[in-house]
């Protein structure tokens, strides 16, 4: 059994385990599910203003083409440390928008080939971290935190590390 089929089994098995365990523990399954789902629905609705604010702001920045010019500034640095500069747009977009970086990943895969160095690097980078700024605004916004202290710094340092580690790992593991 390869890993693709394994990952197809994983979620159904998780659902089965939870429901089965609840059944054994005599949880009123249907009532419990609907109660939780209702809470989830209210929570999901309550984050919509933060969701639309963040994605709107990010899209304005992305579509203005401003970041494309920032990439040019970093180019000499990347050439110097021998990291392929084509990964830079993705590295910069990754903490801001998961969907945008997913789209960049697909572009890179199309351009360089799915199992090329760049193709594997893009996939590794996409999988190795999550959208820091989006989660920060959503989570802190929903509970009314105004001062996030050093959260952004810590998150972005981890993201930077993810880029460095991805490049190193893909180079030494696969090539």
């Amino acid at each position, binding site marked *: 059994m*390869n*890993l693709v089929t394994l990952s197809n089994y*994983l*979620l159904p098995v998780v659902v089965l385990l*939870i429901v089965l*365990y*609840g059944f054994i523990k005599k*949880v009123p399954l249907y009532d*419990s*599910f609907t*109660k*939780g*789902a209702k*809470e*989830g*629905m209210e*929570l999901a609705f309550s*984050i919509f203003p933060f969701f*639309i*604010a*963040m*994605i709107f702001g990010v899209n*304005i920045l992305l*579509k*203005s*083409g*401003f970041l494309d010019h920032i990439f040019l500034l970093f180019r000499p640095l990347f050439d110097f440390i021998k990291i392929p500069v084509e990964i830079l747009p993705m590295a910069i977009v990754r903490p801001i928008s*998961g969907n945008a970086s997913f789209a960049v990943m*697909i572009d890179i*895969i199309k351009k360089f080939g*799915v199992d090329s160095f760049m193709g*594997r690097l893009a996939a*590794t*980078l*996409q*999988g*190795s971290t*999550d959208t820091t*700024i989006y*989660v920060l*605004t*959503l*989570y*802190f916004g*929903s*509970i*009314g*935190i*105004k*001062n*996030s*202290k050093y959260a*952004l710094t*810590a*998150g972005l*340092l*981890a993201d930077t590390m*993810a880029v460095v580690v991805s490049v190193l*790992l893909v180079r030494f593991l*696969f090539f």
Partner: protein
Amino acid sequence: MNKLWGLFIIVGVLFSLVSGNTNLLSEEIVSGPKTILDLFLSMFPLMVLWSGIMNIAKDAGLLEKLAHLMRPFFRLIFPDLDPDDEALGYIASNITINMLGIHNASTPFGLKAMKCLQEKNPDKKVATRSMITFLVLNTGGVTLIATDIIAVRSLYGSPNPTFILLSTILATFISTSFGLLMDRLLYERSKRRESRHLK
């Protein structure tokens, strides 16, 4: 956060005015919200469904078990929290669902965990140490099986789409551990600053 969001919009609009690239932007302002709603609607049922399933897990006592299992790890990274804190159960489910690769479904638990932490927060406007640690842990994006990436790789004809799991898992563990370390160092620094401030 207010500044960052404002900066995104001001820089974005000004830049597109200067570079004369305004058609993309006005398109975003007119039809963007509809796309955002579509995105939200695509995540929404998943959040509701998993909130229901995880509530069964909660009522059956599975969440406490899960949190208990992760206890040594939690004690290490959340020294400010009582090991029986309700937030830890939600944090445990948030991490577990992320590991399974269904990121959007984990959001309700992240929000609930934050709410629990906020209840004990003396200053409701300022993030606590545990909140920041949880955020770093969450945005580290510890994923064991990145289902969507595997799907894209197989769509573009990779003979071995799951090949990427090895590098992904290693990268996510290294960068998240690094993030947690930075979180600890930054906390110590801010504590030192505050105590100096008090003197």
